[in-house]
């Protein structure tokens, strides 16, 4: 019997396979259900850390610079992500503000911070303090990160308002676009290989 750490279980149908090493553009697929078992991780830990730091910097821009601003008869107004969460918190619908905050602020921020934390220690070839907690946190936060939907939403909002007033996409929107791409790239399931590496 092989060691359990060399086995991989399909999470969709419980089929068991042996782990293989993959080259670029390769992935292993479950024969039973067609689910992806393994994907080639093209990035080294260092590259991923660099991307995480990039994400953190982009996040600062995305959160502190207005995503867009509008102008109407000389009066202008701009909104950051935090502003849009705040506006939802007014009145009887506060709960949706919590959901929005979780999906566009809390989840991405925590993800990036945890990634930097974990990867920084991984660089030193050791597990970070509370490694298991961090990894589980990353795992459970993943479905709640909706920054890319937020990006799409911002673009839709631009088009929606463009008919009525002047809309100027802000620096935050570009940062948001870059951030969502970077996050998809680094915060996917590939983090799991840290368990095996360390």
């Amino acid at each position, binding site marked *: 019997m*092989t060691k359990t750490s060399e*086995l*991989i279980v399909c999470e969709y149908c419980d089929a*068991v*396979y*042996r*782990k*293989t090493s*993959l*080259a670029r*553009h*390769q*992935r*292993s*697929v*479950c*024969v039973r259900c067609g689910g992806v*078992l*393994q994907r080639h991780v093209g990035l080294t830990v260092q590259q991923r850390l660099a991307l995480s730091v990039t994400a953190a910097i982009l996040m600062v821009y995305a959160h502190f610079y207005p995503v867009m601003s509008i*102008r109407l*008869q*000389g009066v202008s107004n701009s909104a950051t992500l935090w502003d849009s969460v705040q506006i939802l918190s007014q009145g009887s619908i506060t709960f949706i503000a919590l959901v929005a905050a979780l999906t566009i602020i809390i989840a991405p921020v925590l993800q990036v911070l945890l990634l930097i934390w974990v990867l920084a220690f991984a660089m030193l070839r050791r597990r970070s303090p509370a490694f298991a907690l961090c990894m589980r946190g990353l795992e459970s936060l993943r479905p709640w990160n909706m920054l*890319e*939907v937020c*990006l*799409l939403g911002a*673009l*839709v909002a*631009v*088009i929606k308002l463009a008919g009525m007033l002047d809309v100027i996409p802000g620096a935050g929107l570009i940062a948001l*676009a870059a951030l*969502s*791409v970077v996050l*998809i790239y680094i915060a*996917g399931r590939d983090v799991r290989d840290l368990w095996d590496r360390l």
Partner: protein
Amino acid sequence: MQETPPQPAPIKTRRWNVSLVWIVPIVALLVGASLVVRNWMQEGPTLTITFRTGEGLVANKTEVRYRNLVIGQVTSIKLAEDKKSVKATVRLSKEAESFASEDSQFWVVRPRIGAGGVTGLDTLLSGSFIGADAGQSARRAEHFTGLESPPPITYGEEGKRFLLSAPDLGSLDIGSPIYYRRIPVGQVISYALDADGGSVTIEIFIRAPHDAYVTQNSRFWNASGIDVTLDAKGIRVDTASLAAMLAGGLAFRSPEYAADGPPAAQGQRFELFADEQSALAPPTGQAKFIRLRFDQALRGLAVDAPVEFMGVEFGKVVAVKLDFDEQKQSFPVMVDAVVYPDRLGPAHAKMLKALKHSPDDEMATARLIGNFVEHGLRAQARSGNLLTGQLYISLDFYPDEPAVAVDLSERPIRIPTVPGDLERVQERFQRLVDKLSQLPLESIVTNLDGNLNELRQGLRFFNRQTLPGLQTTLEELQQTLESANRTLADDSPQRQQLNQAITELRRMSRSLRELTDYLGRHPESLIRGRPKSSEP
């Protein structure tokens, strides 16, 4: 049961294995790209406009408007390289591409008090904007020089341009209104000093359809401000409109004597008159100068006072000078006047024709005037307005005046004068007073006194003697009348007798007439007697 040992999973190699998670960013990318493309499709030309100042211009805020429709926006404002102007970069919208043609005009609209009133007040709230007017040239340009003030007419507006010559600009400005019968129909669009500096040429624009009212005979005059005239006709205040009063304005009209005329051509040059009166005055024709000598003071006769002939104004006083007459040792007033015989209209024309007189022949003119003077032509300073005491010169015929010799060689020709109305009245009154003073008033009064005494005595006698007799006579007369009345009353016997007598008389006259008739028809009956058968 056979346990199959775990096998390595099959490996799939695909160069592009795009996971579903990338769908959202890809869609976002597509949306963003469509936004950019749409924006790019809608983007019009980008122009740079040079203005003297950047006052009121704000990057990304100041709009470019045409007929108050936003067609673009200022995207940036920079100082020009020579630091003498500012360069505004303007992005026009797609539909406004025609505004990039090289003869387009741009100007900054700010609150402005100018000719034709206060404009751009709305910009106080909304901020300034750049006004634009599309050109018609097919050639495109990217650099424009902004106008300092709005062009008074928008491009392609129907109408005609005319030129006016004036000695000075007066209170006119670009945009000053032009009135036709007090209705604004056009504007001053430019002015320039003539090359010799001696006069000003004003370019005006009359909008269609009013431009048809500008005829070859039209007269333009300055309707600026308040025109207060104090002349022989009294005080006159003329104002065109409040706007014209503040900002100046022009008016035009065809004079009554030449109401119809062919419409003026584009660019025709007209003279600009100082006021309506001089503009509408009949054509002056040839000027003739006359000199008048008055022996009395002429208080109230001013230069420009009208000269009238038989009540028709046809000239004006050009000089009033005091002279010294050595022979009479007096100070006569010499009045020089210019007259325009043409203004007398048909009278002058007919006279020229009848006398076969050429107005260019000076000697003949002098002879003609000498002839008139022989017939009693005299000049008189008359009071035109008792209130102000203004005088005017009136030429009229006074056939009773003693003849005066006219020196035909004198230039300007001198027309003898008669004293003015007031002077004549004074003179006559003086004469009356003189005659009165010559009367033997003393003896007249003594005689009159005696006469009065006699009259009184006569009256007394009359009262005492004649009146009682008269009383008796009257009473008798009354009695007689009463008896006559009685006699003539309806029921009196005399009246009835009279009636009967009258009836008898009527009957008698009828039978008499019948007899005569019968005799007329049967004269033989006078001899033979009446036949039995015949009826009377």
